[in-house]
């Protein structure tokens, strides 16, 4: 047969989103297709842009804290922690040990809730409709702890610059430990439902492979990086809030495919439980607020502080001109950076895989667009 060329030229441009059930918010992906095969994709972002960084320049240091919760709204506690640490570093104060331990407990709980939300929606994208309900059931337990501690479930505003606003409540330790006791069995349940399932394996193994080199090139961090085999976790690499005191492992994957990212996150939930248990059992007593003036005026200077948020490296670059308001706050959101790798992961896969891949990066559009 002659070499057929001109039907190969049926490049199709498909517009996925911004209103699409599996783009996790208002992400728009322009896919270039050859039949069902993806030749490349381009993300169009900004549908949820609220100018958070600009808002910071018109708020006092204290007042800006609630806004960072609204960036990655499924991991609000981590966002708050990063901001507080950055301003604390600028003012050269440190939260007292008890505050640090409570911060660790809450951020790790938040990591679990974030991963649970990711797991549920990711499974839903791939067509398993039940895990999402199980995940939300357990997430609810953690959110109840947040609500009891600081009065809000999602946008918690749990921490203040210099320490904590709220002392823990009476049953705090008991409830957290109860969660730690209940949760491992539930993780086993998710794994039973998904990990060994041949359909799940078929949909995730070898899909959206990202090598360690690619990760470094794109600046990808968090579970996506660790799934490619790079053992990089800021909690170990540059410990903050007393993470050096806790014993935990960094789960890594080998192939950097969707399945490895899934396994890494599942393992991270288990590791988080270990940290929480150690923190609760060694919870020190003492003050919860460091020496912070009522009207904050950090000295002139700038600093960059990054923490390991559930989605990757969350960095805050804050600049002070010795006034009550920040001169500039720049956020390095993990979702935004990780989203860059979407094109590399999608190339050569099928449309149905794109859905799985978007799910596996674990993006929150509030954080991507800010």
């Amino acid at each position: 047969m002659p070499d057929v060329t001109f039907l190969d030229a049926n490049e199709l441009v498909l517009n996925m989103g911004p209103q699409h059930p599996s783009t996790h918010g208002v992400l728009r992906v322009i896919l270039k297709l050859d039949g069902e095969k993806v030749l490349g994709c381009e993300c169009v972002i900004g549908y949820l842009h609220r100018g958070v960084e600009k808002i910071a320049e018109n708020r006092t240091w204290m007042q800006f804290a609630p806004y960072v919760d609204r960036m990655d709204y499924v991991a609000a506690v981590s966002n708050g922690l990063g901001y507080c640490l950055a301003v604390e570093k600028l003012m050269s104060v440190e939260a007292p040990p008890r505050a640090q331990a409570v911060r660790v407990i809450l951020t790790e709980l938040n990591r679990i809730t974030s991963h649970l939300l990711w797991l549920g929606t990711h499974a839903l994208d791939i067509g398993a409709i039940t895990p999402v309900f199980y995940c939300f059931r357990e997430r609810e337990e953690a959110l109840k702890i947040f609500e009891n501690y600081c009065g809000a479930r999602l946008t918690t505003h749990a921490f203040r610059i210099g320490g904590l606003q709220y002392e823990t409540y009476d049953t705090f330790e008991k409830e957290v430990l109860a969660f730690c006791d209940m949760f491992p069995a539930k993780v086993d349940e998710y794994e039973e439902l998904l990990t060994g399932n041949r359909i799940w394996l078929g949909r995730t193994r070898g899909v959206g492979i990202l090598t360690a080199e690619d990760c470094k090139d794109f600046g990808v961090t968090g579970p996506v990086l660790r799934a490619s085999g790079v053992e990089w976790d800021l909690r170990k690499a540059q410990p903050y809030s007393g993470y050096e005191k806790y014993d935990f492992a960094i789960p890594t994957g080998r192939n950097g495919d969707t399945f490895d990212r899934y396994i890494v996150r599942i393992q991270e939930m288990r590791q988080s439980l270990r940290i929480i248990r150690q923190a609760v059992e060694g919870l020190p007593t003492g003050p919860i607020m460091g020496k912070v003036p009522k009207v904050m005026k950090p000295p002139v200077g700038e600093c960059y502080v990054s923490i390991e948020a559930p989605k990757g490296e969350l960095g805050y670059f804050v600049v002070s001109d010795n006034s009550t308001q920040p001169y500039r706050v720049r956020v390095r959101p993990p979702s935004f950076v990780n989203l860059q790798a979407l094109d590399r992961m999608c190339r050569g896969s099928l449309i149905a895989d794109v859905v799985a891949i978007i799910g596996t990066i674990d993006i929150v559009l509030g954080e991507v667009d800010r």
Partner: protein
Amino acid sequence: MHPITTVHYLFLSAALLLVGTIGVLTRRNIVVILMSIELILNAVNINLIAFSRQLGNVNGQVFAIFVITDAAAEAAVGLGILIALFRNKETVNADEVDILKW
């Protein structure tokens, strides 16, 4: 009303055959030509079944099964050729495929 006899079936079969022939000879669309061939094959089948009934054995039905098998093979190959043709010439018009190469 006359009872239905084999002759009725034969007339029907002949009519269907003619309809199919007209389709094959006059239509320009290859898909419709292939469909007309199916009509012709069915006309044959009606005859086979009618005689099978009249003669009181099932040999005619067995033949009809072979004809249907044949029709399936013919349709598969014909449509395969059609797809290849369309890919190369972007037409399904019989008049435009009059040179034996592409």
